[in-house]
């Protein structure tokens, strides 16, 4: 509970400052990992477990950082997701560079 309270204060700098900074949203990160895993045809239960594990890793990484960029957040999440599901990690990483 303490950790979550602390992490709500983490600021996410979006797109090199071109969009307004926003607070870290654990649910949003979790949802994006679930979506990437589902896109890689992972069963929903497994996708949720993977997302939980990756979100926990990211929360640990964020513990002593008051401000991070969305790009760094994505890199860290991708690195941990790769260990669990390489295909999902590839889609998660590629999301911004497909078009």
């Amino acid at each position, binding site marked *: 509970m303490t950790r979550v309270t602390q992490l709500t204060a983490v600021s996410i700098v979006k797109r090199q400052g071109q969009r307004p900074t926003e607070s870290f949203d654990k649910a949003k990160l979790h949802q994006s990992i*679930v*979506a*990437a895993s*589902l*896109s*890689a*045809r992972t069963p*929903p239960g497994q996708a949720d477990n993977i997302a939980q594990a990756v979100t926990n890793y990211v929360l640990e990484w964020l513990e002593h950082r008051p401000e991070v960029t969305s790009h760094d957040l994505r890199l860290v999440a991708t690195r941990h997701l790769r260990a669990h599901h390489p*295909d*999902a990690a*590839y*889609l998660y990483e*590629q*999301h*911004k*560079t*497909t*078009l």
Partner: protein
Amino acid sequence: MDIASSLAIVTLAALIHASFQLSVSVLTLLSGHAIGTKTSQARVLRLTFGFVSGVGVMTLLTLSFISLVFLHLFGPNAPQYIWAIACGLLVGVGLAVWFFYYRHEKGTTLWIPRSFARHLSDRSKATKHSAEAFSLGLTSVLSELLFIAAPMIISALVLIQLPGMWQLVGIAIYSVISLMTLFSIWVLISSGHKLSGIQKWREDNKHFIQFAAGGALAVLGFFVYVTKIMSDIAGTI
């Protein structure tokens, strides 16, 4: 130019059109978002089919529109300088595709304005109904006009010379062949293939696709220049 040569030119132009990747990228994003939000497979199929249909309809309409404009402006035989401009455009766009089609970064990011790419990406995420997917298909063809205009213009110039029935056949051939890539991706998604595999293949082969599309545009420009302009000049002499 006889009917067989004309249809061969239309076929090659349509193959070049099929090698362009913007619609494929949007289809990949659209299906990725749909699958990622636990949408049923039947709904994913409807959405992606709506998108492919939109692309097909807009391709057909655009080619018909360009042909109609040319027919009104020049009649069935366009002046030679128009053919020369079209050939120059093909070679020019071919060179541009070689150098600028993909951005020099990871992934399959294209050289289109970023605001445009963001709009298409956001719309693909927000699309929930087949009708929206259909309109996204229409829009994605317009977004690609910069690259597909050259093969469409040369096809239109070739088509207006043909008898009415063969014009329709030519337009149908162009529309069907230009949809081949999208249709293949649709079949792969429908049959449960992983999007990551499709996207990885696209990324691994992007330079080949870029080289092939640019090269084919230049070859088509040269071929039309020789078969139409040079042969006409030789015939006059």
